[in-house]
């Protein structure tokens, strides 16, 4: 009896006072995307997208924004403008304006990093243009946050954006000999367009890569499972185009002389098949020609891209990490000096596997 009484008292005390704050799903404004615009020194405008789900299951958007010094502070301030508490546990995308990225994302990433309710699968992107305007746009099928997240994910899986999320961003930020990249998106004709890649030094954006180089970049950055590539060729004085699809790439690093003057050789293997040709007939010759064309083009792009990276002293292809992982007692400072003048060889192998179900090779 005594036990029961004690149990009841403990339960009553704990049950009465030991309660967690409730966050009932339908009484929350669950933000799906946040965006940050640069508004002068130490001032940012935070915009949150909240999908409003109507009883008939249609979704409309609501954006809330506020100008503040700190990102978390402004997210708290958003609550003032909303009838329901704004929560950030379901944020899918965080967008930063190009200007803010050029100033540095350190302060604005910190809060995402600290909040345990935000997952590290969150996607980050740099926006060329006004973030608030982009987030204010509504897309029919999904709410804006989900739409952007789906589009970026689709581009990662089937397109040319390198695999990217908050976790990988932090990882490449903290890893020595590695610099993060983020996709750049823009609002174009009421649609979201992937414009290129933002190249970072630490958390500061120092340059960008246009979309046309993204195939080569992704091939050197990771393995591509499925992508397309366009070649231009001249045949009988006419400009013809060859489309190569189903591209699969594999890369391999070879590092030599890591203790003295490291030299990196990148082996890139590309496999694909011809799916479209504007010329007369695809023959074995065309395939061989396409192979050579592609090899040359990829090689040229890769070499110039790496040169560019070395010139601006950034390492998004993680050469430093490759060398570090092969060297005992790796010296980061020494590496930084070596990197600029390091020799990087690129070897490209292209294989056209098939030309489609018309006349054989």
């Amino acid at each position: 009896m005594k036990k029961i009484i004690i149990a009841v008292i403990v339960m009553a005390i704990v049950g009465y006072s030991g309660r967690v704050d409730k966050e009932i799903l339908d009484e929350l404004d669950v933000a799906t995307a946040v965006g940050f615009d640069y508004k002068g020194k130490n001032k940012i405008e935070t915009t949150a997208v909240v999908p409003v789900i109507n009883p008939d299951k249609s979704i409309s958007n609501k954006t809330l924004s506020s100008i503040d010094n700190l990102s978390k502070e402004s997210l708290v301030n958003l609550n003032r403008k909303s009838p329901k508490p704004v929560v950030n546990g379901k944020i899918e995308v965080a967008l930063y304006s190009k200007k803010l990225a050029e100033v540095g994302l350190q302060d604005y990433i910190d809060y995402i990093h600290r909040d345990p309710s935000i997952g590290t699968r969150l996607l980050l992107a740099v926006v060329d243009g006004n973030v608030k305007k982009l987030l204010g746009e509504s897309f029919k099928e999904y709410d804006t946050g989900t739409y952007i997240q789906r589009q970026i994910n689709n581009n990662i899986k089937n397109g040319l954006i390198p695999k990217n999320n908050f976790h990988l961003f932090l990882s490449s930020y903290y890893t020595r000999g590695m610099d993060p990249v983020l996709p750049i998106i823009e609002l174009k004709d009421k649609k979201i367009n992937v414009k290129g890649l933002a190249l970072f030094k630490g958390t500061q954006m120092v340059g960008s890569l246009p979309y046309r180089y993204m195939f080569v970049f992704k091939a050197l950055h990771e393995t591509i499972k499925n992508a397309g590539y366009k070649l231009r060729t001249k045949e009988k004085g006419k400009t013809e185009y060859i489309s190569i699809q189903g591209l699969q790439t594999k890369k391999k690093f070879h590092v030599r002389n890591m203790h003295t003057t490291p030299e990196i050789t990148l082996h890139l293997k590309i496999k694909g098949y011809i799916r479209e040709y504007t010329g007369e007939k695809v023959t074995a010759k065309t395939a061989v020609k396409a192979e050579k064309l592609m090899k040359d083009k990829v090689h040229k792009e890769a070499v110039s891209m790496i040169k560019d990276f070395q010139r601006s002293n950034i390492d998004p292809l993680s050469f430093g990490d490759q060398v570090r992982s092969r060297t005992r007692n790796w010296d980061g400072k020494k590496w930084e000096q070596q990197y600029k003048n390091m020799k990087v060889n690129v070897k490209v192998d292209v294989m056209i596997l098939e030309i489609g179900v018309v006349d054989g090779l």
Partner: protein
Amino acid sequence: MSWFKKESKKEDHSLFKVIQHFKKSGDFIDFHNPQSPVPYWISYFGSLIDVEILHRDILPFLNKSSIKKLDELKAALPIENVTVTSDLEVIQKMMLTGSLLIRFTEKDSHGVLVKAEMNKAREVTIPEEEFSVVGPKESFVESLTTNLNLVRKRLPIPQLEIREFLIGTLSQTRVAVIYIAGIANEENINTALQRVGDIQFHQILDSSYIAQLISDNDNSPFPQLIDTERPDRAVGVLAEGSIIILVDGSPHALIGPTTLVKFFSALEDYFLNWQLASVLRIIRLFAVSFSILVSPVYVAVLNYHYELIPKDLMATLVSSRSLIPLPPFLEALVLELAIELLREAGARLPTKVGQTIGIVGGIVIGTASVEAGLTSNILLIIVALAALASFTTPVYKMSNAIRLIRFPFLIFAELWGLVGIAIAFTFLMGHLLRLTSFGRPYLEPIYPPRFEDLKDAFLRLPFKMQPKRPIELQSPDTIKFSGKAAKQKKDIDE
């Protein structure tokens, strides 16, 4: 019978007085035949006596002139249960349990007691609660004699021991404890015999009275003895070393010692091949955990953990809940109670009306409450599925327990979300770990972990792989059959 003793102590203590007292009852017959060669008095309760036995086996012998003494009559009657006695207490007891008394003089202090009990029992029918498509279709009935016959004929061995008790100061119910000597553990037998023998109660109407009176922890919502209406199941566990208890007037046998997992095994599992049986068992165990956890998880997630909801589901959840005035906990509670109401109403009403209740409850209340915006349709699906899942448990009492423990889980989920569910689960586990059945651990193949017993717990592995009796029952004769011999025989056939 103390009420009777006290009265007779005051009065003149004679057989005649006893008969006079009995005569106050309308169904008591005291019949005198002066015309027969030896005049006799015959007295009995008309409501307890099989008249056919009286006419066929008793009266012809009374009309013979050769019989003049009670002992001679006893020898002549073709009935095995005949006693000549003057012990009033025995006479009273026997007459009240279906014997008739024959005297040759009215004031004789001696009489012959002849057992001529009327055995009006239900026919052995198809089991209703534990119906199985495959396998025998006999079920226990209310008559202990019939039930014992159903058991005995399946186990024609001398080691089958049946110990009978008379329990209930008023009801004098026959309770039989059955086990196979040499297979059942001595300690288990003693526990069962002692507990049954020690019962102090006035009336035993059903075997569930016994189950409640002898269970290890009567504050637990979990039944600690399986009750079955299938004689084949009872015999099956007897052969493993369990003890069964049969009660006169109850069509349910009690099985002990038992474990939690056994409540989720249906007898049909042994009639199907092992792969199918194992899948069915896993489905059942999944259904149980689903039934207990699904509505608490709904409440917890909607109250505290919106982050856990997949974003594709969020629109569905929010839109179904947006017009509902109740918080998730009350919503779930209302629906759970509604389902319980339906079940209770369906169980109390005759079958035909019960069907109507099902339609009214399922279609009218369900659809209307969603349309009226009182409950969300997702929760309706969840609760209905959970109720359905709880009925997959083969033992009815266990499915009741499962439906009951869902409510504390709901409260904990409301208080602390998923952490609360974890706390409730910890309490549940603590309780189950402490629980015993006839002194044997209730959560057995899991804790204490016994790999051998897992072969017939969550899965039902082939018979060939189970040559031993379950460790849990601590049988002195551990080997069911020789596993090696079973394998060898197969080799020869090849």
